[in-house]
């Protein structure tokens, strides 16, 4: 089954889905394993695994540091693909890779997609690859049935959203606000208007991310979006309280 359908099916059963994020190899693959296990056991619906890049231009300080430490510890792309395969094989939820375009470009687009498919992953988030920069890549992704997740931003016009929707598969990642990952977002009136515009622009499920911190944030999104994305918050949690703290945190969000 493809990503869009998996999420739509899950959405039938839950008021709101949860997607979480980890940085591969940070602090270690072993901790990644423990964290993912707790996430899955506590009902997470989808997990994006970030392959670290030395220049994570769209990420804030927490994820930036995680990227750099993972690389410094020796994480390779091959390690990440292998680990992704292990997770997809172990758990019955959709897994995605998130990374910057250079990682894929340098690895070889087709080879990367082939191995992603072989690993059993469902999609890819590449924040620095707008569709007009990657027409060939988007076509290849379709061939390999890897959903290219596209991003709507509050600054996207209606026309732009329509164009993005044309290329997108799986779901649309709506960033809640301007800025990079990690800072808290406000879900006020402007946000409502923005989300309504997103909804109108696509039939794909909508995920909202950037700065979602706690139960209150998730509650506030219920009924407005299909999926909430928890990013840097769990990385900080692991840093501060260890991997064991993740399960309880996830369980308490919905």
């Amino acid at each position: 089954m493809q990503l869009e359908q998996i999420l739509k099916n899950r959405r039938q059963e839950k008021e709101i889905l949860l997607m979480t994020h980890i940085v591969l190899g940070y602090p270690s693959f072993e901790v990644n394993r423990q964290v993912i296990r707790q996430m899955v056991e506590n009902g997470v619906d989808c997990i994006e695994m970030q392959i670290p890049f030395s220049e994570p231009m769209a990420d804030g300080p927490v994820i930036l540091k995680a990227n750099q430490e993972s690389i410094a510890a020796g994480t390779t792309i091959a390690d990440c693909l292998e680990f992704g395969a292990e997770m997809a094989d172990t758990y019955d939820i959709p897994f995605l890779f998130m990374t910057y375009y250079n990682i894929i470009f340098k690895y070889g687009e087709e080879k990367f997609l082939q191995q992603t498919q072989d690993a059993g992953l469902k999609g890819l988030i590449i924040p620095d690859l707008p569709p007009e920069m990657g027409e060939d890549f988007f076509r290849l992704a379709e061939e390999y049935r890897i959903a290219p997740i596209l991003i709507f931003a509050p600054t996207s016009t209606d026309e732009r959203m329509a164009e993005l929707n044309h290329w997108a598969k799986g779901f649309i990642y709506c960033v809640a606000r301007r800025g990079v990952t990690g800072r808290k977002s406000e879900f006020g009136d402007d946000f409502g208007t923005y989300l309504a515009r997103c909804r109108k622009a696509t039939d794909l499920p909508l995920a909202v991310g950037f700065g979602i911190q706690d139960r209150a944030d998730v509650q506030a999104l219920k009924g407005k979006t299909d999926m909430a994305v928890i990013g840097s918050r769990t990385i900080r949690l692991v840093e501060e309280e260890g991997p064991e703290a993740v399960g309880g945190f996830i369980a308490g969000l919905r």
Partner: protein
Amino acid sequence: MKRKGFFGNWGGAFIPEVLHQTFQELEQEYRKAKDDPAFWQEYSALMSNYSCRPTPLTYAGNLSKHFGGAQIYIKREDLNHTGAHKANNVMGQGLLVKRMGKKRVIAETGAGQHGMATATMAAKFGFACTIYMGEVDVRRQRPNVFWMEKMGATVVPVKDGSRTLKDAINEAFRDWVTNLDDTHYVFGTACGPAPFPEMVSWFQSIIGQEASRQIVELHGKLPARIYACVGGGSNAMGIFQGFMHDAVELVGVEAGGHGIASGLHAARLCGTDSSPGVAQGYKTMFLQNSDGQMLETHSVAAGLDYVGVSPILSDLADKKRVRFESATDKEVIAALDLTMRLEGIIPALESSHAFVQAFKEAPGLSPNDAIIINMSGRGDKDIFTIAHAFDDPSWKEFIIARAEEYKK
């Protein structure tokens, strides 16, 4: 078919979605300015009234005699206000910012020259200003930091990654995606997402426009070769554009650091450690490992110490229109020394790279030939690095004595 924002295989705008609209507007404003002859007039009037354009093309008689080959001319971008060619680009973008009605500018800086120029422009135009600068460069270029702050700018030392130019660029982008409504990112070189490479090159083309006129006035004909150092590529593009369609050999000189074989350098177009990549919003030759992670670079010149290079230059390298060479730190210090002694001119460490290659080749050319070295900036800013490189004992004593006073 030419893809928009691409030069051959290179360039593009690999940007987060949140910036899409901002780039659309910038592109539009840039096209409008480019099509409006009044804009260039306003720009060049500003540069002649606030800076001192046209900058001279100085005949270096003593160096020419010393090498006994080509007649050596030096294009004096050091005489610009703030001391480098960076002012050209920055003042041009300043005019665009005014047109766009934005109130704040941000910039990355390596050598500090672009930061100085941006802080200066912000003061002149009344914009708020934040400058991102790698922590390593803050240390290398402290005097520039001091002046930027005095000009009212906030200088943020960037402590991530290699703590040099590329990290400052990432950090500036992070600011921009957060504050895009009122803020313009004044990119400092002919790199980054389209339209920056083309736009920065356009503003810098004022160098080549002047030089092509001046060399004919002074030497009676076009030069045989032109030398320019290549960090991001803006001063090189600036002068090269004046001679692109002429039978003039164009030579770009990259930072050879401790030598190409050492791995401690920043040679992207003449070395063997680079490969095609996409980062910082554009596609070019990057110094990266086989996994696509960027490498640490090294140069005695903070302004050349960068992993990427202008996509336009990557294309001109493909097309063999520009030849690329490198100069080591050691060669740079020697060329600087000679230039000071023989001509009374102090090139910036960056610019000195171009001098190195010109000095290597001048003896092999005929005295009927002219060559032009683009002196992108002055070396005053580098006093801490240069005094250090020369291991000057009285400078050290002076610094130690000052420190003692400050410790009291």
